[in-house]
């Protein structure tokens, strides 16, 4: 009783905090664009400006003092050393007198400067936006060129056997960019406005001359406005320059700056409160691991928002990775349904699919035809191998998991030898020097690279929807679902649920297990091809070894057990697992730069969930 009461109180407290934060954030958010926000920015901007120009002014004073000192010393008739001494002394004194740390900013009257700056900011904003638009137009016009060049560079790297990242980095060469007429006109306007700023500055610092103003122009322009500026960026820039002291009400400005994070935090707190409140229900419905991983995924989303990472891009990548992995995860379904538990021998199917893909490239079959050919050949090989594999498994009922793992491992290492000796000829596949096939085979536009990803794909903001990939995924899921509703499928599930009962009702258990295993292996072959087309590479040698584990852990995260699963487990599990991995990497890199913590995360999650499933399935009571 007390425990649940305590939980309720905690949840209410969290909710109150959340509401407070949400109200604070919600009230502060619009202030950014209102007068309050502009005032904050103006104050900060003026202080930054004074700071920056102040240094220039000190130099001017030093120059003047030096000149005077030299003249005085000469007049006194001193030698060279006396002059030098006098100059050094004058410089030191002047610096000490005017150094920016001791400047009393409150004594400076900035009304003139503020007025001048208002005009200049508006002019600069117009100019910078125009330049930005012009540059973007230039990039759009030349993007295809740059993309082709980047692709060629990557293919060259692959051909030389170097490692390449899976994201293609496209940089447009801006050397050909020229200012448009609009830009030049706006620039002239900005220059006019700058004259007033210069005069205002001269009013504050009498020693400021035109030469000093000219040198400071670039700095002032950068302080004033940069392309793509919004409230947060400018605020951070000015605070980085050490101007925070200029504000009278620092905390209010701080709240305005972090208003969005306050709102995110409020949502996070509400989720936390709900989790605490409905803890038991959630755990009962989803199981502890799914709750933990689900919450972890939500946490990562909030951290991505907090660190101002582009959440939409990250989620878009998650969807792509979900699509590319989903078929391999789907391959677990027939295996679990027919009673061979997690098919950790999935590499058998993967290898078959890879052979199909290799043959396509070797024969040079382009585009859709090639992809279809690869799937067909891969599936045929997988069906034959799967049938043999099923014969083995039928003789080993009850011991499938450990046997399948090691059979899968053996096949992968046997194929390592095969990749070295198979008589493929194409130079896309072989090392130009030395024996055997390449480690990673780069697919290009003449093969089936991104053939599903790019089909009917469209963008919503930063979110790219790989329509073809998702449609293919749903199609496969639908087919497996339809199969599981068919007469054979129902019989197969009966075998998986209770083999003895199935036998008693006259179902041929061995035959059903064969069907399930073959289906699982074939889906593995299709899965690796879908994965490769999206990834852009086919990975040979030891790469497929761990993929069975990754697929198995994904479906377990989705809610399957070693003896029961649904299609929804595939979709949820793949999304959560890939989501955690995709979001985990950039967030981890913010926390610990240049680390491999994301890979460590994958190892922990993937193996942890399998261990959990094993503890649930192992015959604990048989002791």
């Amino acid at each position, binding site marked *: 009783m007390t425990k649940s009461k305590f939980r309720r109180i905690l949840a209410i407290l969290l909710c109150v905090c959340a509401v407070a934060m949400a109200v604070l954030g919600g009230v502060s958010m619009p202030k950014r664009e209102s007068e309050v926000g502009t005032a904050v920015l103006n104050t900060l901007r003026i202080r930054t400006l004074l700071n920056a120009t102040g240094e220039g002014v000190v130099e001017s004073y030093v120059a003047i003092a030096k000149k005077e000192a030299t003249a005085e010393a000469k007049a006194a008739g001193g030698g060279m050393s006396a002059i030098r001494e006098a100059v050094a002394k004058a410089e030191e004194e002047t610096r000490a007198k005017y150094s920016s740390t001791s400047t009393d900013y409150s004594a400076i009257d900035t009304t003139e400067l503020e007025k001048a700056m208002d005009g200049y900011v508006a002019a600069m904003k117009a100019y910078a936006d125009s330049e930005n638009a012009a540059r973007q137009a230039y990039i759009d016009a030349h993007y295809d060129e740059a993309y082709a060049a980047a692709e060629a560079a990557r293919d060259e790297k692959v051909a030389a056997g170097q490692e390449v990242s899976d994201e293609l980095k496209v940089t447009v060469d801006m050397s050909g960019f020229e200012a448009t007429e609009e830009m030049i006109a706006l620039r002239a306007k900005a220059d006019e406005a700058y004259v007033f700023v210069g005069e205002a500055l001269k009013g504050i610092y009498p020693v400021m001359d035109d030469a000093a103003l000219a040198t400071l122009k670039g700095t002032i322009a950068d302080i004033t406005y940069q392309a793509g500026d919004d409230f947060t960026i400018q605020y951070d820039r000015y605070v980085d320059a050490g101007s925070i002291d200029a504000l009278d009400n620092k905390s209010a400005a701080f709240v305005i700056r972090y208003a969005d994070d306050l709102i995110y935090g409020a949502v996070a707190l509400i989720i936390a409160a709900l989790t605490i409140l409905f803890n038991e229900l959630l755990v009962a419905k989803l199981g502890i691991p799914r709750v933990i991983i689900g919450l972890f995924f939500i946490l990562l989303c909030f951290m991505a928002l907090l660190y101002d990472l582009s959440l939409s891009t990250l989620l878009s990548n998650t969807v792509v990775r979900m699509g590319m992995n989903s078929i391999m995860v789907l391959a677990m379904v027939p295996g679990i349904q027919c009673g061979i538990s997690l098919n*950790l021998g999935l590499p058998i199917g993967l290898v078959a699919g890879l052979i199909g893909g290799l043959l396509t490239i070797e024969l040079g079959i382009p585009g859709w035809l090639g992809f279809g050919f690869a799937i067909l050949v891969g599936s045929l090989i997988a069906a034959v191998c799967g049938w043999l594999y099923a014969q*083995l498994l039928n*003789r*080993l*009922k*009850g*011991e499938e*998991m*450990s*046997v399948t*793992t*090691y*059979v899968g*491992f*053996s096949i992968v*290492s*046997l194929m*390592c*030898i095969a990749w*070295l*000796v198979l008589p493929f000829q194409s130079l896309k596949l072989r090392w130009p020097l030395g*024996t*055997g096939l390449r480690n990673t085979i780069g697919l290009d536009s003449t093969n089936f690279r991104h053939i599903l990803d790019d089909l009917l794909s469209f963008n919503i903001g930063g979110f790219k929807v790989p329509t073809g990939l998702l449609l293919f995924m749903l199609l496969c899921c639908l087919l497996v679902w339809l199969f599981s509703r068919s007469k054979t499928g129902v019989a197969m599930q009966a075998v998986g649920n209770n*083999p*003895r009962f199935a*036998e*008693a009702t006259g179902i041929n*258990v*061995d035959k059903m297990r064969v069907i399930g295993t073959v289906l699982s292996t074939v889906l593995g072959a299709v899965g690796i091809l879908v994965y490769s087309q999206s990834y852009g590479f086919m990975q040979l040698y030891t790469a497929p070894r761990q993929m069975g*584990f990754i697929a198995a852990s994904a479906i377990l995260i989705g809610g399957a057990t070693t003896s029961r699963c649904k299609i929804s487990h595939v979709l949820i599990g793949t999304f959560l697992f890939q989501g955690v991995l995709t979001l985990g990497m950039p967030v981890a890199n913010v926390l*610990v730069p*240049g*680390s*491999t*913590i994301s*890979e*460590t*995360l994958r*190892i*922990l999650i993937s*193996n*942890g969930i*399998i*261990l959990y499933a*094993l*503890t649930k*399935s*192992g*015959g*604990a009571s*048989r*002791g």
Partner: protein
Amino acid sequence: MAKKDIRSILRQNAVTVMFVVLCTLCMIFSGQTVPYVIYELFGRLSRNSFIVLALIIPIVAGMGINFAITIGAMAAQISVLWVIEWGVGGLPGFLLAMAMTLPIASVFGFLIGKLLNKMKGQEMIGGLILGYFANGLYQLLFLFIFGNLIPLKTSGLVIKGSTGVANTIDLTGGAGGGIKYALDGIWKTDFGTALYVVCGAIALIAIVSIVLKKVSAKKGAIAVGAAAVLCALYQIPAVAALFSMVKVPMVTFGVVGLLCLFNIAIMKTRLGQQFRAVGQNRTVANASGINVDRVRLIAIVISTVLAGWGQLMFVQNMGSFQTYGAHEQVGLYAGAAILVGGASIRKATNGQAILGCILFHLLFIVAPPAAKNLFGDAAIGEYFRVFISYGVIAAALVMHAWSGIQKKKPENALREASAKN
């Protein structure tokens, strides 16, 4: 009658026989000289046999091959890191590392045992995946805690500009002179001396045992005779020449011998009998009042600690180790080795472990050059031995599962019966 015996022996030891044939073939094609191969073999035996012997107790206790010994190896590597950091070198450093490994590996072993008790019948796959999982934790420890949260002072352990402990840990340097060859270097001698010492010891023990009437005179005489024959054989120059390159680290092999004796001795205690009872049938053992979970826990703890010490012997012989990779294949290679020697996942002896170790590592030595000579590519040999490692384990599991089903366990009887209909 005799013919049938040979056939059944061959069938029971199919893996071992196949390996003998394979090793012989590879030996012929490798073009390596016998003295060199024997020299290499002794080196590999001295550093690998201890950890293989660590697998025996869990097998007897019915838990199959303990692939979680990788976690014992991790415990050893944690100890080595700190011994180097503190600059304790030589034999004291090695003994300190052993002393540190004991509690760390015991705690790890306790946790492993707890977990494996929750997945009875799935221990091997559980141990394998637990090893992978622990590798993730190990990476967290070595990448983000050691060297960052807990600073390391010794140069070479951390590399500036990268996070965590360096990729390779060198055991030769350091303030105390390092622990390389801390055990091997105590007493190294040529093969002849080693043979005489061992044979002398055998003869002495045999004679003393006869005098004390612990063994029958016949058995004692056979032991003395065998020792004498071995010494006599070594007098033939051709035989002696085969071992000319070998330097035997006496203390290391002595420790391995001690472990063999420990394995024999523990089986004669009450605990050893409980291991065997649990291994044969958990239900019966439980009914006869044995605390099955506790016995299995003890078996895993002992195995994990021994594996840790085995890894220490391995790294002191190698002189350096890959921080993030040295432990990964330990379970695979040790498991494959003991199976090659004729052990199954239910039965294993010291002799099988040592024989398996010899055959398995013999293949490791001769396979790459043989593949290079036959196919012109040493990489084929590398992949081949990895394939063999996995293949041997897969084959052993298949055979075991097969024979288990043939025996018609009560839980399978119904299924079998209905399959016939």
